[in-house]
């Protein structure tokens, strides 16, 4: 599944470019769909009337008398709601396939579960407001389903047996719910992303315009229509149901209410416990702060993708104002903070080489020592250091006599000074940096931060004395190994060419 997903993403990268790849911003597209639903809904709500005999005609008025705006808004409202369910399902599936729900990511994962319920509640509630045959079918099937729960004295369904039993207050209630449930959704969306640093809640402009235009074209081409007024004396027989929202009802015709409750509760429970189910996933120990080397510069706080590093007043009496503190529950052990720490600089002396923030299982001193060992062994005309990340293409497979490799939990763990160190202290001919695909870093921001640091656009910057023509960046997912290998060879060839030119110049 992972292979298939990465393959599809690769295709979409070619079609859209990685910055506009819809699969890289499904969450943001979910937010965007939600806002489209809210805006279109607000318009049609202004014309909606609540009442047994008022609701259906008011929706018909919006649809037919004002087809050019109200009708389009109604269609957009429906199709954007469907798009919301579609992108939400894809978002969930993608995060599941890529394993982005374990460890500290559990919070975003489980807060997504009630969001699913609420989005369905709001969507189904919206269908009732039309009060056509589909609304009648959906309403009655829902109350019959709820009647299975042993919490109601008199069955709710009895209120929907005849036209006389139905009350105008029902329409006031569902109109109210159709406003309040989305407010809860909005609140939960905020909770959903509250442990994520710099969350992407808006898709890129190109994608947003594309999606809006596509939905508008659909709204014009296939406007949404009601299915005839509800009649409590007639049982709806054949219905054009919205399978994004209403698939549960045919299930209720086949299974008992209890079985459907068991299925829904079971699926929800399974999603909730998923982050803690046994798996091959093993989180390495979380980051640790070493106060003796922490100046409270806040770079680790700025770079942490999960807000797992916070600042607090200095506790050790040193003259700095603040110190960094790791929140263990939020840390995913990506090491990006260690890569951001200025004290990770490998040019420091042997004695007391500890970074202000470190990964206990991969201390900077150990990283430097390992790199020293590997680089000293390098031979050949063109010697290269290849850095990659554990979640992307396996750089270890490209290790050779002339290529030393270094795989990190995330490329963002690489302090730019290590690149300079390899070039100037070990005189390697080139450094190639790889990792997850652009805009799809397993640890969210490692790729972006690495790009910016190497381009000297973000602290800690790669200094100017590190020759840029001896550094190559090529992002490659685990399935892109076949592309990484030729890239390395082409880099080697360009370095060889440069060396040749330099030798010629020296000889002259």
């Amino acid at each position: 599944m992972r292979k298939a997903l990465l393959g599809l993403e690769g295709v979409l990268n070619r079609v859209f470019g990685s910055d506009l790849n819809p699969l890289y911003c499904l969450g943001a597209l979910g937010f965007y769909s939600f806002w489209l639903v809210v805006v279109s809904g607000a318009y049609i709500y202004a014309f909606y009337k609540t009442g047994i005999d008022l609701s259906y005609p008011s929706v018909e008025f919006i649809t037919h008398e004002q087809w050019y705006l109200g009708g389009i808004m109604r269609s957009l409202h429906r199709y954007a709601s469907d798009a919301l369910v579609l992108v939400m399902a894809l978002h969930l599936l993608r995060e599941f396939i890529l394993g982005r729900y374990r460890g500290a990511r559990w919070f975003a994962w489980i807060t997504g579960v009630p969001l699913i319920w609420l989005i369905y509640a709001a969507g189904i509630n919206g269908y009732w407001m039309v009060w056509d045959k589909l609304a009648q079918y959906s309403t009655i099937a829902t109350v019959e389903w709820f009647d299975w729960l042993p919490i109601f004295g008199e069955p709710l369904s009895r209120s929907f047996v005849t036209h006389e039993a139905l009350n105008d207050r029902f329409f006031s209630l569902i109109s109210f719910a159709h406003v309040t449930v989305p407010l809860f959704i909005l609140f939960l969306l905020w909770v959903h992303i509250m442990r994520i640093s710099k969350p992407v809640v808006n898709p890129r402009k190109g994608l947003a315009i594309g999606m809006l235009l596509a939905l508008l074209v659909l709204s014009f081409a296939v406007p949404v229509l009601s299915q005839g007024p509800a009649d409590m004396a007639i049982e709806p027989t054949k219905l054009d149901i919205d399978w994004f929202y209403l698939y549960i009802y045919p299930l209720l015709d086949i299974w008992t209410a209890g079985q459907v409750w068991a299925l829904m509760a079971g699926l929800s429970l399974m999603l909730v416990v998923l982050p803690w189910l046994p798996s091959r996933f093993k989180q390495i120990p979380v980051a640790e702060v070493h106060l003796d080397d922490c100046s409270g510069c806040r770079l680790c706080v700025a770079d942490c993708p999960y807000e797992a590093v916070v600042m607090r007043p200095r506790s050790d009496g040193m003259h700095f104002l603040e110190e960094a503190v790791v929140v263990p529950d939020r840390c995913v052990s990506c090491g990006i903070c260690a890569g951001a720490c200025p004290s990770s600089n490998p040019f420091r002396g042997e004695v007391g080489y500890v970074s202000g923030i470190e990964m206990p299982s991969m201390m900077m001193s150990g990283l430097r020592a390992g790199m020293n060992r590997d680089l000293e062994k390098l031979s050949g005309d063109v010697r290269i250091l290849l850095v990659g990340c554990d979640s992307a293409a396996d750089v270890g497979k490209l290790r050779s006599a002339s290529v030393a490799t270094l795989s990190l939990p995330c490329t963002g763990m690489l302090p730019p000074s290590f690149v300079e160190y390899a070039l100037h202290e070990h005189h390697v001919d080139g450094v190639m940096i790889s990792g997850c695909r652009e805009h799809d870093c397993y640890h969210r921001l490692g790729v972006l931060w690495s790009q910016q640091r190497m381009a000297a656009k973000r602290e800690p910057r790669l200094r100017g004395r590190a020759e840029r023509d001896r550094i190559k960046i090529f992002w490659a997912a685990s399935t892109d190994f076949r592309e990484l290998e030729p890239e390395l060879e082409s880099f080697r060839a360009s370095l060889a060419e440069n060396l040749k030119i330099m030798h010629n110049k020296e000889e002259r």
Partner: protein
Amino acid sequence: MPKPLQYFAQGLFYLLFVAVIGFFSSSPAYTHLPPDETLIKLSFSHAGQHKGACRERTPEELAKLPQYQRKVTTICPRERSNVVVELEMDGKQIYHVILKPAGFSHSGVSNIYRRITVKAGTHTLKARLKDDEGDDFNYVREETVHLAAGRIMVIDFKAETGGFIFKNYAP
């Protein structure tokens, strides 16, 4: 990928996106009730009779009560009988249920809401209800009704108006 080809492929992607949404938003159609069937909804609330006989309070008992409680002179056992309901169509039993009274002390009403799908056509329907501890059904109603396809017939019950009410909305 050349730009024109890229735009073309993007267009195809958007087309696929709206096609999926447009199609599953209302298709395939779902047949909830076959065209030759009709629906009977059995729906009512009824309190079974008290288990055991009610009796009048003696003057001594009334005298022991505060003044404001003396208006209620009859006292009954709290627990109520189960309500038994049966439905027959063309002489064949199609539904039977024993409804327990609501509440921890079984002192509340018995509720029922049931959908029963039957073939459309003219049928003889017989509804029976028993709400006491005896063996016989104390409310019975039998009627020949025409149940039109796709229509809903509601069977209600009100003891004060004589028992079962057949509300057939057939045209």
